[in-house]
């Protein structure tokens, strides 16, 4: 029941959002990626205890994707940034 600060709509309850999982996964070049690299891109995800960069989608709101850095233990939200941005330095 987190309160998520949507960059477009402000603070909203998490029920309005969909979590898109780990952020900043780079889609390898399909022409050159090995089977192992492609499998890693498709299936393997980090599951850290602590700070985690994630993609979130305000499905029942503005329908915009954004990035959020969240502590997976305390649910503290450390940063919210645009989907086109890379992770802020200070947040590990």
């Amino acid at each position: 029941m987190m309160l998520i600060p949507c960059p477009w709509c402000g603070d909203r309850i998490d029920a309005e959002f969909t979590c898109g999982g780990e952020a900043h996964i780079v889609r390898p070049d399909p022409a050159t990626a090995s089977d192992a690299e492609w499998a890693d891109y498709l299936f393997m995800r980090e599951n850290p205890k602590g700070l985690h960069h994630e993609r979130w989608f305000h499905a029942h709101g503005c329908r915009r994707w954004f990035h959020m850095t969240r502590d997976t233990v305390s649910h503290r939200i450390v940063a919210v940034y645009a989907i086109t941005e890379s992770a802020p330095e200070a947040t590990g």
Partner: protein
Amino acid sequence: MQSWRNSTGGIIDRSRHLSFTFDGRRLSGHPGDTLASALLANGVHLVGRSFKYHRPRGIVGSGVEEPNALVRLGEGGFVEPNARATTTELFDGLVASSQNRWPSLAFDVGALNSVASGLIPAGFYYKTFMWPAKAWTFYERFIRRAAGLGQAPEEPDPDVYEKRFAHCDVLVVGAGPAGLQAARAAGRSGARVIVADEQAVPGGSLLAEHVTLDGVAGQEWPESVSKELAGMSDVTMLTRTTVAGYYNHNFLVAVERVTDHLPAGESALPRQRLWKIRARQVVLATGAIERPLVFPGNDRPGVMLAGAVRAFANRWGVRCGARAVVFANNDSAYRSAIDAADSGIHVTTIVDCRAEPRGRLVEEAQSRGIDVMAGRVISGVEGRKRVRGVAISTMDDSASAAVTKECDLVMMSGGWNPTVHLASQSGTRLAWDESRATFIPGDAASCQTSAGAAAGSFGLAQCLRSGALAGTEAAAQAGFDGETPAVPEVDGDTGDGALDLEPFWHRPASPRDGKAFHDLQNDVTTADVALATRENYVSVEHFKRYTTTGMGTDQGKTSNVNGIAILADHVGSSIPGVGHTTFRPFYTPVSIGALAGIDTGGELYDPVRRTPMHAWHAGNGAHFEDVGQWKRPYCYLREGESVDEAVQRETLAARTGVGILDASTLGKIDVQGKDAAAFLDRIYTGTFSTLAPGRCRYGLMCHDDGMVFDDGVTARIADNRFLVSTTTGGAAAVLSWFEEWLQTEWWDLDVHVTSVTTQWAAIAVAGPKSRDLVSGLTTTDLSPDAFPFMTWRDADIAGIPGRIFRISFSGETGYELHVPASYALALWQILMMAGERHAITPYGTEAMHVLRAEKGFIIVGQDTDGTTTPHDLGMSWLVSKKKPDFLGKRGLARPDTLREDRKQLVGLLTEDPREVIPEGAHVSPEPGAKPPVPMEGWVSSSYMSPNCGHSIALALIRRGHDRMGESVAIPLEERTIRARIVKPVFFDEEGARLRG
């Protein structure tokens, strides 16, 4: 006759009588009573049978902590099982009955368990019924019948519930002395405050105290504070409201019992209201719960918490017995003993396990003639359905020192546990406090403070001060500065709340002592703890589950700390060394109705979507099915016709005459922008940039792993514009998929997508007479040369501006007519009239399914399961080899997707042409093979085809494409069906009708 009610004292209205029944017996009480206080006023102690041993049980507590007095309330659909008698407000006409007994409370057959109790220790069911494995299904029926406390109501719940959101600066949980002070402080600062208290009136422990605050009686002071709060426009006081859950980011859930205290059906208001509260700051002023002592026979009716006896005396003017013995390890029991004595109970003895109890309270008790036996414990209880006496011995149980005392009431106090449940739920760690021998909240995990007894401050003055400070601080943290309210002068307090407690957890029991329960509700004894330890269930989480300590509906409010302490003793560790189990929501049970909210089973439960032609369908025999949220006609029943017959008739009509189908629910997405074609080239396995405006193309969409997740026909409307159609169920997911890629990966593309599913209604017209029918309604030339298969045109259709698509999911010559939704019903009716001469037949989704299966057209989600590639479907021709990339391309080249033994889509023809294989049936290779028979695949679609004259089926079978002609077996429970693998197309294989 309320013969146990005093003529004065308490906060009940003796001028009015409320009549109620318990197990059919008519009794009376007063406004202000709970069911428990009214029962006790009538001398009723025996109120239930215990969970496992069916031992007689009485009322133990006076509030939310009650483990024993669980009753069934109400009748018919209004029945509520497992209601605590101690928190059930009495009203005129209340009907309550005892639980877990048969045939009656006084004589219960299940009590035989008690005789056999040596045979059913902790873990009994797990150990005994493990073998033989097959027999479990037999045992289970009997165990299930014997298990559980109350019975669930059998009728639908006729009550109405509602939910609401609320936001506040400061939420104060609990309106006892600390909570009221906190609310006052926060309210005066101007903050937006919500105060929630589970009782009918604010006051908490003050309602059971004989004190004065600033000269005002303690029982009246709360009302004066609530008057002050009522004058503050930003303060909301919620009584009868239990904050039951504390979630992330200070989100709390509370249940307001709006009309539970009124006779069923009397009020138009909802029964309960679920509050979802987001608070900037939370003050937890939840008080403390008294701890029982663990000694043999401590579950006999008449053994009660000392503070509960005191509350029944002070708040309700009820004597819980005539002659009492107190068993204590701390000072607070003396206050209870004194008040009990003052209320007219003859308190003969205080058995105190401390060697040298001393102080003002001890002297006060002795001055009332109460005998204090120091360094002694109760070692046994006499009486079954009611206490008759106790055996008292020294700590080391030297028999010579044992004495017996006659009594009908035992008042026990093992100290107090701060109500830390909500704090713990929020993630706040609990710390063991040695001096008070209890867990108290550690550093708060969120914007939260605990105040008063909930923080371990047991003295009244300390509570008042702690609450005032907490309220001021919480308001300040939320941005509101105010002065801390003065702490009222307390007269008659118990002191500073120091209990001078000496822990007494249990005495090593010998079998002759009888059972000593630390968990009354789940019937868990010290012997069970010993057993769990012997069997190495020594982690506190294992211990809890193995013995079921704290797993009842009371969630261990009175049992957890005792259980942990006894475990620590057995394993030779300390209490903080053993630790505690995690507190989880809910604090007290919450009704399913409150969680479900308004209209628990009706129309508003889930949105219902209807097409513009719905009324026509409903008026013409439609038998509806749910497709996602949509209502779609499955078939149209004629007089005297079965569903199967209707489906066969409709399927035949669409191939012999003309049929029409309401296809409005198909997902439609308008894709625009100069990169629209490039976008669709990346999304679909096929190529859309080469599609000319005015033409349509069928496409498959894959996730990047190469698995098919949706399909449909896309029409190019203009150079920069496409209309994508999706499956009915996949519409929302496909739109989200488009948005995700456009926003997160391909933000350089100039593409905009929007759903137009409900803007356009669609009618499929199919059959040899379809051209004749549609051409009569439009000036557009429908001849095959002018308007070939897989093209579309803007058209005037019976005067309605729309689009005609020459596409077909039935495999017949056919058209899909798209018109703005508001014209759809009119067009449908026009088609029905114009089609009369062709005996036009509306057909439903099932006929559509049969028609498409005859042609081998797949339904994504039915003939695919998320592990199916386009190649598996035999649709490699739809996968571009030229495009350098599209979603799924690289995935399709993974070794796993290239395996030759993948399940592939094939057709099946049964040996007996009349036999229809059940969908979902497994396919095995060799008829008559011995188990375990390998599973070679499964049947995804299966129908009787009237156009083929035999049954048809589609199946996903391992290596299926290479096994044409092979025989397979479909083993069912009662018989085995033989079938032959064939190509997945059964009708008009060359597509002459489609293109004709």
